[in-house]
Each structure stands twice: as C-alpha cells, then as structure tokens.
C-alpha cells in the first residue's frame, strides 16, 4: 500500500510513468505480436468450431479485463473518497473508457462468434446480458464523471457510483442468471465440455497477460494525458 500512496502525487507519478511507459509499450508490442502468432497461426483449429475458436483468444481476455477494470474503478473511487488522492480521480477518468472499450470488444467479438456457433448475433443468455449491463454501468460512470462544469465534482460523484456499482454487480449477475433460467431453458451450446487442451490454453493465457498489459499501458498513457489536461484547465482559469 505504501507504494500506492507514494504514487498518489501526480508529479511523482509522472516521473514513474516516464520511466516505465517506454519499456512497457515495447514489451506489449512484442508480446502482442507473438501472441497473435500463437493465436492465429500456431494453435490448432477446434475440431468442432474450426477457425472461429480463435475469436476466443481476444474475447475471453477482454471479458476478464472488463470485469477487473470495473473493480479498478471501484478501488480508485475508494482511494479518492477515503484519502482524497488526486491521482485516483485522474486515473479513474482515464481507465473508465478503456474498460468500456474492452467490454465493447468482448460484446462485439462474442456477437461475431455467436453468429456461426449459435446461429444468432445475440441471444439473451445470462452471461451476455450481465456483460451488457456491465457496459451500461461503464457508460454511466463515463457520463457522470464528465457531466459537471467542475471536474472534481464529477470525479467524486463517479467514485460513489463505482462503489455502489461494484456492490450491485454480483446482485445483477445473480438476478440475470435467475431470470435466464426462468425464461429460457439452456438451449445454447456452450464451450464447456472437457477441460481445455494445453494447445489452446497456452495461447489463451498468453493473450490474457498481453491484453492486460495493453490495458495497463493505455490507462497509464491516458492518466498522463489527464494530468496534462487538468494542468491546462487550471492554467487557463488562472490566466
């Protein structure tokens, strides 16, 4: 925790990010190149799904990151409300659109995968529906944090929303599961089956780590931008 408090100062964070960002970007690009090779060329096509199974290498990590990203928003919200860390607000502002982006990628790739596998771009499956609601929660956070003339008010309102949202996410997930079993029997083919073969699991985990690095990279980059923007706004007000 001590390290996080150390980084709460935007100037110190800036020195940290300028040291870390170039190597992080370099590592992400290298890992992404190798990960795409693993996922698109090296790994075998699925015996049932053929080449469409390769969508999974982007789809599943995006879903994980979208969920973790909302957790990050809640943690940053708590840091802002409890310790009033100025950086937490800027990072939440930077992270929300990235998380929403991964959520959208998950929904879009899922829809493209669903068309050949289930015969429909969208089914009201419990997991799809909860992911869509997570996307709406992201949208609410983004809209609320940008809805005020004083950005600090939007930051704090969005922080409260993120905390309430993270409490509600399990409840929403549970009720959507219940709703799905009530309304439609499990007619949807699932991946499930036996455990995943290593030839698919290794590229999947590799892509998960890579996309997670990409998420971190984008959030750090955007946080830098937010610091610059906030400084510019303050300078304009003083001028």
């Amino acid at each position, binding site marked *: 925790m001590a390290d996080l408090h150390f980084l709460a100062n935007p100037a110190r964070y800036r020195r940290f990010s300028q040291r870390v960002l170039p190597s992080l970007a370099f590592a992400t690009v290298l890992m992404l190149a190798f990960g795409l090779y693993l996922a698109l060329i090296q790994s075998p096509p699925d015996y049932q799904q053929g080449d469409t199974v390769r969508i999974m290498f982007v789809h599943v990590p995006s879903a994980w990151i979208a969920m973790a990203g909302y957790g990050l928003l809640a943690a940053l919200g708590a840091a802002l409300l409890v310790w009033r860390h100025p950086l937490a607000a800027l990072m939440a502002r930077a992270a929300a659109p990235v998380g929403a982006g991964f959520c959208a990628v998950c929904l879009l790739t899922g829809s493209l995968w669903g068309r050949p596998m289930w015969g429909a771009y969208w089914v009201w499956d419990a997991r799809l529906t909860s992911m869509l609601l997570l996307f709406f929660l992201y949208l*609410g956070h983004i809209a609320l944090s940008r809805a005020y*003339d004083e950005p600090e008010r939007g930051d704090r309102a969005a922080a409260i929303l993120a905390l309430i949202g993270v409490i509600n996410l399990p409840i929403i997930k549970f009720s*959507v599961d219940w*709703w799905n079993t*009530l309304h439609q029997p499990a007619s949807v083919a699932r991946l499930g089956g036996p455990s995943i073969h290593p030839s698919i699991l290794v590229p999947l985990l590799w892509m998960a780590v890579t996309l997670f690095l990409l998420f971190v990279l984008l959030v750090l980059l955007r946080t830098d931008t937010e610091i610059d923007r906030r400084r510019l706004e303050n300078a304009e007000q003083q001028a």
Partner: protein
Amino acid sequence: MSGFSALVARDLRLVWRRPGDVAVVLAFFVVATTLFPLGIGPEANVLARIAAGVLWCAALFAALLSLDRLFAADLEDGTLDLLLLAPWPLELAALAKCCAHWIVTGLPLAALAPVLGVAFGLEPDVLLALSATLLVGTPALSLIGGLAAALTLGARKSGALLALLALPLCVPTLIFGAGAVEALATGGDFGAHLAVLAALALVALATTPWAIAAALRQAGE
C-alpha cells in the same frame, strides 16, 4: 425521529399543494402502458403474457420521471444547506426524502397497476400479486433512483443521466418484481420471488442512504 417525520411531512405538504406533479407521473404511467397494446396488437393471450413486464417497466420509468426534482428544489432554495448543517444525520434526511417520494409515487402506482392490469386481461389473483410486488419493490426504486438523483444534482442534462445511472441498478428489482407475477401466473413459486424482492428492497434500504448522503455532501461543498 421527529426530524425524520417532520421532513416527510414537509415533502408531503409540498406535494399536496401542487398535486399536478404527481398527477402527471400517474398519467404518464397510464398513457405509457396504453401504448403497448396499440404497438403490439390486441390479442388477449399475448397481452396477458406480457402484462406484468410492461406494467413493471412503466412503473419503473414513471418512478424515475418524478425523481429529477427530488433534491434539485432543495438545492435551489437552500433547504439542502440547512439539512447539511442540521445536527441530525444526513443519512436520515436522505431516507426521509426517499420515503416521501415512495408515498407519493410508489403507493399510487401500486394502487393503479391492478386497474390497468384488468385492461390486459389479468386474473384477479394475478392483479393482487402485481399490486403486492409493486408495494414491496417500489421502495427499492425510490431509494436507487434517489441515489441517482443525488449523484446527478447540478449536472448538465441531469434527467437523461439519472435514467442512465439508475436503470442498470434497477434491473434486479425489475426481474424479481415482474418474475414474481409471472411465477404466480405460470404456477411457479411466488413466495420465493417476493422474498428475494423484499431482500433487494432491504439491501437498498441498508446501503443507499449512506451513498445518497455522501453524494449530497459533495454536492453541497
């Protein structure tokens, strides 16, 4: 506690002096539900099948419609500043505001819904169940909506933003409210659904006043 009842009584008195505000919300509820048969068609079995969901969604929209003025008027005339300075907890004041909102919207909606349900061809016991679920579930809508109203206090385009924030959070209430009515109609376990609905309302009761108070404090700063 006297502060709590005084605040509820004040809000009710304000509504009593301008009953048009509540009438508009109820009229919206009636008109919005009337549009569904017009859009979907008059087949009786289809309408009876969707009635619970339609009435619950319309009640949700009607409750949200009336929420954007919940704290805005208090912010404008300075009441909110007095509530912030008052020697008793702001959480209690938030709860009192939501309680008053429920009395003037949740209760009339629960009373009005069976009348509209008749037009959808629902059986008498289903009508009663519909009213019961609205009675149990609308407090959660008032509390969650109250939170969205407090968060958007003073924001640009606060009305649309309020709906964007509140609707995803209201999904569980909608699922179990409409689900309970459907369970009764299709021979499912009505009691279990109603119990979960009550649990959702209690969770909202236990969590939202703190969040509303936090949002009001930062709005008052």
